[in-house]
């Protein structure tokens, strides 16, 4: 293989770039303009819109020069829209300008097409020398497209009411079978064009079918946010949506070209066809083979991809950024017309090409020498400094919904039959203690304040919060009110164990996760998802304040922290009136906030046994069903060797994605509300999530990128050549031993993309950019 488009002799004639201008706006009849000379043509991709700088000769073109004579023109002929001699009309911002180059047979071929919004005229003087210059900055059609009405992205295209009604008759909303056509879709301006807001799907499950000639093009449309049947968009579906509703100027036509406005489709519809009905679960796994790279990129899911208020070009740039793909606009000849076609590709997956410096084998003809040597200036700078072998990916803290019994969080109190006085008294009888606790109910307002029980245990009692006796502070505010899980281990049995009753020393051992059957989910070394029990001692002795349940009612509202009491030693459980229970701030536990615990009864049992009496009788139990946080964070299991990382040393970097990947389970513990628990809940809140597979994929995609060298390079071919295109991948400079590999052995080799081609009068500069996906991976 050798270069093809090159001079053939030692002194070859150049085939220069020529400028052609539409004789009238929209005529598509291009006339070669001899006044114009291309100073520089740049073909780019993504947000680097192709552009050209064209210099215009102002002077007279006399007769006898082989081209039509023309008088000198002045800038006002163009700026002020005067008729321009020789062209019959003025050069306006609506006339397309094409740059072409003749092939070896002398036929012109288009390289670029655009509009000039910015003609520039200047006169400069330097001493005795004066000069005039007239130049045109011609920018690619993508820029003009982004100014059209249909390219403004806002609102949503959704099924009309009639269209939705028809679907509802035919199939359920969760069915993914295509239904309906372009006539069933309408524009809803009140909703913003945001794909998967807060990572929640807002795509209708069933796409519509838009018939384009003989071809059926499936397009997914929006549904409203919060639609329980809403599905998550994939990037392929987003791209197809943007194409059909904001790229093309119409949806009615016999071919894709007939739908085109300023821009035509190149390969976008074709490339999205194989993946349009797939979901993220169909995504190829990393490390990604070159053949799977496009599917890998397109089957990712956007999270809150906001396009509202953007132009299509801006949306495309963001989409390419987020998916690790590129797009470009190529101007190609289509008979007499020029089509500006949009092409997409996955990074590093373009046609592999090389540059050549093979040197000379003796007596080779010049034609062969130039085929084998086409670059004489190049700068290559491989950069391994950003390779990360071991990314530390931190998801959110893992949480479980548990049901656990609480134990008294107050020191044993003698008025609760828990201890005698320090002077050795025996415990008072339960009957006496009960009388002591209830006398105050008979007293009037003035005398009740003098009652000892009221004084110490009623919330309005003077000494409820504490009183000093012999320089010792006695506080009763926690008695029968503070119930704890004892996960901190600070409730030592020596201080808190009761000699009698159910709350003995055994119950004051530090709480174990295994008592709630807590199991943790993880990815094994072979890539499978497994669970294992959390071992005793694995969690540290820290406070774990309780959080609202993941289990929910029919409206998906959390059941909250469910505190239940038993009046019969744990046989049956029930709630007490709302408003009485508060959660502790710094540990797992509750606080009963009722004023008078002798007036707290079971539901519908106001004349029965009070909470205080039940405790005295040794039958009161308290349990809580809530969410508790563990010590571990959600994390992937990554094996850098699968990606062929070209470094032996281990380099690391932390990626905090706690806001993005969460894990909270109501199944992998003992919650009474879990699906196979004692009282299964109707549904669960949106906080019940399992992002383990997501974070694993995220980690793999990080390694996919972070394990590669960067290869920025600039190579100059000393003549104009069309051997290279934006989107090609440069594999090497043959003959020099320089290979643009980005990864070590064991990984999937990819090569840097050509992202820019710059043509001047005399040379072609090939610019590669192995810009990392890291630049665009969303970290929060």
């Amino acid at each position, binding site marked *: 293989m050798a270069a093809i488009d090159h001079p053939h002799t030692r002194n*070859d004639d*150049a085939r220069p770039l020529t400028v052609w201008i539409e004789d009238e706006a929209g005529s598509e009849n291009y006339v070669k303009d001899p006044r114009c000379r291309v100073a520089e043509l740049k073909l780019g991709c993504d947000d680097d819109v192709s552009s050209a700088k064209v210099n215009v000769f102002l002077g007279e073109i006399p007769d*006898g020069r082989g081209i039509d004579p023309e008088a000198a023109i002045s800038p006002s002929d163009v700026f002020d829209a005067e008729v321009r001699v020789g062209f019959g009309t003025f050069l306006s911002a609506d006339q397309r300008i094409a740059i072409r180059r003749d092939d070896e047979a002398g036929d012109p071929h288009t390289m670029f097409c655009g509009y000039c919004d910015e003609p520039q005229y200047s006169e400069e003087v330097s001493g005795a020398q004066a000069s005039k210059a007239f130049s045109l900055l011609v920018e690619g059609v993508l820029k003009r497209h982004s100014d059209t009405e249909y390219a403004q992205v806002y609102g949503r295209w959704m099924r009309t009411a009639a269209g939705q009604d028809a679907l509802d008759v035919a199939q359920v909303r969760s069915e993914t079978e295509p239904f309906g056509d372009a006539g069933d879709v309408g524009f809803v301006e009140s909703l913003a064009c945001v794909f998967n807001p807060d990572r929640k799907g807002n795509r209708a499950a069933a796409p519509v079918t838009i018939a384009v000639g003989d071809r059926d093009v499936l397009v997914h449309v929006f549904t409203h946010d919060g639609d329980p049947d809403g599905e998550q968009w994939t990037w392929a579906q987003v791209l197809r949506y943007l194409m059909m509703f904001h790229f093309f100027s119409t949806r009615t036509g016999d071919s894709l070209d007939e739908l085109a406005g300023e821009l035509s489709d190149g390969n976008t519809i074709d490339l999205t066809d194989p993946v349009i009905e797939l979901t993220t679960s169909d995504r190829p796994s990393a490390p990604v083979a070159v053949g799977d790279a496009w599917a890998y990129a397109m089957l990712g899911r956007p999270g809150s991809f906001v396009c509202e208020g953007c132009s299509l070009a801006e949306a495309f740039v963001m989409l390419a950024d987020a998916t690790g793909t590129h797009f470009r606009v190529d101007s190609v000849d289509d008979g007499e017309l020029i089509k500006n076609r949009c092409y997409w590709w996955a990074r590093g997956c373009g046609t592999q090409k090389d540059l050549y410096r093979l*040197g000379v084998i003796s007596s080779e003809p010049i034609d062969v*020498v130039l085929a084998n040597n086409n670059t004489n200036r190049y700068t290559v700078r491989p950069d391994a400094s950003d390779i990360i072998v071991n990314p530390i990916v931190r998801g959110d803290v893992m949480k479980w919904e548990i049901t656990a019994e609480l134990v008294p969080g107050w020191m044993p109190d003698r008025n609760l039959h828990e201890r005698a006085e320090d002077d050795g008294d025996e415990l008072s009888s339960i009957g006496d203690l009960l009388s002591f606790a209830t006398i105050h109910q008979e007293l009037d307002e003035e005398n009740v304040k003098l009652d000892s029980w009221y004084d110490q245990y009623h919330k309005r009692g003077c000494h409820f919060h504490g009183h000093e006796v012999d320089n010792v502070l006695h506080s009763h505010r926690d008695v029968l009110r503070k119930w704890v899980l004892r996960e901190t281990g600070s409730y030592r049995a020596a201080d808190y164990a009761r000699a009698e009753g159910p709350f003995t020393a055994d119950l004051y051992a530090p709480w174990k996760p295994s008592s709630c059957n807590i199991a943790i989910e993880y990815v094994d070394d072979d890539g499978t998802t497994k669970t294992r029990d959390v071992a005793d001692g694995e969690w540290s002795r820290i406070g774990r304040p309780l959080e609202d349940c993941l289990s929910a009612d029919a409206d998906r509202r959390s059941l909250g922290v469910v505190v239940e009491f038993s009046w019969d030693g744990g046989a049956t459980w029930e709630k007490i009136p709302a408003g009485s229970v508060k959660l502790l701030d710094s540990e797992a536990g509750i606080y009963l906030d009722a004023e008078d615990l002798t007036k707290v009864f079971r539901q519908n049992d106001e004349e029965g046994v009070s909470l205080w009496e039940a405790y005295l009788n040794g039958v009161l139990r308290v349990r809580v069903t809530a969410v508790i946080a563990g010590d571990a964070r959600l994390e992937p299991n990554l094996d850098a060797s699968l990606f062929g990382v070209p470094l032996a040393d281990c380099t690391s970097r932390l990626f905090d994605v706690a806001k993005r990947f969460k894990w909270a389970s109501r199944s992998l513990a003992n919650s009474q509300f879990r699906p196979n628990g004692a009282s299964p809940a109707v549904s669960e809140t949106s906080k019940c999530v399992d992002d383990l597979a997501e974070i694993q994929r995220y980690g793999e995609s990080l390694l996919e990128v972070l394990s590669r060298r960067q290869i920025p390079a600039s190579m100059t071919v000393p003549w104009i050549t069309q051997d290279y295109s934006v989107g090609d991948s440069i594999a090497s400079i043959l003959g020099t031993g320089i290979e643009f590999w980005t990864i070590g052995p064991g990984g999937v080799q990819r090569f840097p993309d050509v992202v820019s081609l710059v043509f001047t009068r005399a040379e072609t500069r090939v610019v590669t950019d192995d810009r990392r996906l890291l630049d665009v991976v969303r970290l929060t």
Partner: protein
Amino acid sequence: MGVPRLQHVGTSAWLDIGLEAGAQGGALWTAGTARSTWGPPSIEARGIDRQLESFADIDGVFEIRHGQRERRIVWPGILRMTDVARATILAQRDSFNGLAGEFLYVDIDDTEYGGCVIEPLELGRSGMRMTDPVMGLIWVAPYEIVVRQLAGPSA
């Protein structure tokens, strides 16, 4: 009136150099006013717009031609003129220098070169005077007319 021409006129030993154009500057050296030496103008080869490239460790140079460009025609001589003729010639020279537009240069062998423009014409200052048997006391001044042919070979 056709395209202005610059050409040799006359057959005497001292050639007259005239410029037929009327309003284009009139004759440069007219008969009876001055005399010039005779000698063929040098018609330089047409210039080539060439771009030279080389490769490290490959011998030789490669050339890409962007087309042929202008050609210079250099016409030197020595002028002999009287005081009166000198003043006239200097005035005519100024008109000639201000010549706008292109003209046709016709060589001594009647070869025509179209699309020509002229460089500003200077008369050298030798300060030499001599006595001419015919003209009497005269000034001697070398000159060089440089014409550039702009039009390409296809024109």
